[in-house]
């Protein structure tokens, strides 16, 4: 068959018109959402299988750590909750032997490690920072948590809530971060501490933590309830 310029132009134009007409989006259909949720649950299982409790997230030299770390939340930094160090208590719940609440002084007296790791946001940006704090595993053992349970959940002073699988909770780089760039964690970044997990996307790193609980029921997550994948490992 022969192609000539006029035919090519005419057909190309009608092709362009066709793509404009297909602007309808089936995403908001309930059945489509159910199928997508099914794939997301499958992805949770695949990611749990891919996760290694000993494989470490890459660490970087100190000078690559960003001092003016990017602020990120669904509200502005001026609305970040200001927790009074005198009144603050960390509540413990669930499958934990010693559920006495912890003061900030007690928390900050725990043994600490530093890490220069990369925060990866689900949106695609990434930033290297230096965090210092206590491995969550050390804390869980100190309070007599049942580490054979499946999940650890967190509740936060800003209304946020998250939960992670126990293998990730016991990973050596999962820490209760008391410091960012060697400074006590500033209010807008989650004072008195955030859970820093370099093997998960940023939104799985809750700030302003006020409750830690251990459970066999998969904890809900603030963004997971809004359609994001639950495991969200990286």
């Amino acid at each position, binding site marked *: *068959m*022969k*192609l*000539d*310029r006029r*035919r*090519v132009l005419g*057909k*190309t134009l*009608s*092709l362009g018109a066709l793509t404009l007409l297909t*602007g309808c*989006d089936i*995403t*908001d259909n309930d059945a489509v*959402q159910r*199928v*997508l*949720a099914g*794939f*997301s649950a*499958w*992805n949770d299982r695949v990611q749990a299988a*891919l*996760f*290694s409790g000993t*494989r470490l*997230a*890459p660490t970087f030299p100190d000078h690559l750590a960003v001092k003016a770390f990017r602020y990120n939340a*669904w509200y502005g930094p001026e609305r970040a909750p200001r927790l009074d160090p005198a009144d603050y208590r960390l509540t413990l719940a669930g499958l934990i032997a010693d559920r006495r609440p912890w003061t900030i002084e007690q928390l900050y007296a725990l043994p600490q490690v530093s890490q220069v790791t*990369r925060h*990866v*946001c*689900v*949106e*695609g*940006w*990434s930033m290297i920072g230096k965090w210092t704090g206590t491995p969550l595993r050390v804390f869980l053992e100190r309070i007599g948590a049942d580490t054979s349970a499946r999940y650890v959940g967190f509740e936060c002073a800003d209304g946020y809530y998250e939960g992670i699988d126990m293998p990730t909770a016991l990973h050596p780089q999962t820490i209760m971060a008391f410091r960012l760039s060697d400074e006590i964690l500033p209010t807008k970044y989650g004072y008195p501490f955030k859970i820093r997990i*370099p*093997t998960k996307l940023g939104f799985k790193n809750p700030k302003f933590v006020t409750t830690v609980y251990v459970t066999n029921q998969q904890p809900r997550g603030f*963004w997971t309830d*809004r*359609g*994001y*994948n639950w495991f969200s*490992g*990286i």
Partner: protein
Amino acid sequence: MHRSSAGPRDIQRHPWPVRITHWLMAVAILAMIGSGWRIYDASPIFPFRFPDGVTLGGDGETALAWHNDPGVASAIAWHFAAMWVLAASYVLFLLWGTLSGHFWRDFLPVGPRAFWRDFTAALRFRLPHRLGHYNAVQKVFYWGALLAVAVMILSGLAIWKPVQTYPLELAFGGFQGARLVHFLMMTAIVLFLVVHVTLVVLVPKTFVAMVIGRASERSHESELEDAR
């Protein structure tokens, strides 16, 4: 494809494994491009965004009400669902193309001189299309598309699992490097699709062959004889 040796007609045949994997890849790639654009919009690499209307991720207002976000949650759900469909159909297509001989028979041999000859002819609209016969430009384009999808899958894996597959990320020059490669390969695939679909519109019988498995037309040789 099997060619009719001396018959008066050119015939295009697509066996069912090719048709099924072709259409699965087509749907998955379109879903991944549309949702990928919406994800890109959440943190653009370049100073532009894709309008919501051409992306996949739902209505912006609905997303804000349901998800408290501009549609990224649904776009990621699409992206991480379609990736399984694409990976599976791509691997099956590679297996079938290799084992059946389709790749070696129809996409080879191809050399730079043949490509240049056919490419310049195509630009002057002097490259005739013959059903069931692949010219050098087509061969290079199909190899290129296969390669682009492979790099797409690998860079996507580096972005999805930058910790669990860290060496892969390093091969792409870091996490943001992998994002850039992922974007550039998307661009290559979109350009391929524009050319591919335009040519299908110009030669609609190739579409028929990819749907029902067979199409034919008067052979190129007999058309030439008529013209004399």
